[in-house]
């Protein structure tokens, strides 16, 4: 008899998707603020330090999207693939950007 229960909790899926989006937003925000002095300056003004603003935006977005995606359904395989791929791509964007522009 198959006693496996292979469904994930709603929060696991929704915060997983939020992790995916926020990882990419984090990487894209790096490029935006490094390329545009106006963005960097605005982020600086908001909290006194661009990195604090950057962190706050990503963390708040993670929480908000975690609840926003509450009713989204996705297979576990796809969720795992999306998380791993997007985390690696986001990391490569950040590393690659500073290797090229740094």
């Amino acid at each position, binding site marked *: 008899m198959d006693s496996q229960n292979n*469904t994930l*909790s709603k929060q696991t899926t929704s915060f997983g998707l939020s*992790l995916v989006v926020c990882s990419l937003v984090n990487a894209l925000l790096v490029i935006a603020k490094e390329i545009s002095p106006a963005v960097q300056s605005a982020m600086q003004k908001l909290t006194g330090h661009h990195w604090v603003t950057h962190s706050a935006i990503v*963390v708040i977005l993670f929480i908000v999207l975690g609840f926003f995606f509450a009713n989204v359904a996705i297979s576990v395989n796809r969720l795992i693939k999306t998380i791993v791929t997007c*985390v690696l791509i986001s990391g490569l964007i*950040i590393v690659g950007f*500073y*290797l090229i522009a740094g």
Partner: protein
Amino acid sequence: MSEIILMAHVLFGVACIIAAVWVFVDVLNASERNQKRIQWISRAAAIFMWIAFIIGGYWYVVFYPADKAIILKGPWPFAHEYFMETKEHLVIMLLLLVTYLPIAASNNLVANKDARRLVLWVSALVPLLGLMIEGHGAVIAMGVKVALLAKHI
């Protein structure tokens, strides 16, 4: 004081990595006996990471500008231009990953094979990214050291 804050940042970062490795190994052998422990250790990993992040963030904003000036005048300016710039942004991604770990681990890992695979992937990414970030920190510290050495020779 600055050094104590910095060492506490590293200490909690390492504690987070160790906790994530612990979760990975425990999930490989998930059973009724260790299910609660997996959930507690994954929560501990998240708490360690948040402490490391807040302490490190405070040090970065308050104390790092002086180190940055020293690094940029020294022979290893890339310690700031590449390593610190990369580290300060990769760490945000690590924070999200570790925050997600206890959420993923809250599923029934004994009965749910897919949840086990998810936790294994997330807990594997944490030490990989964490060790990379620790290495970046070492290069940044070395950047300060070689700059100060170059000044005295």
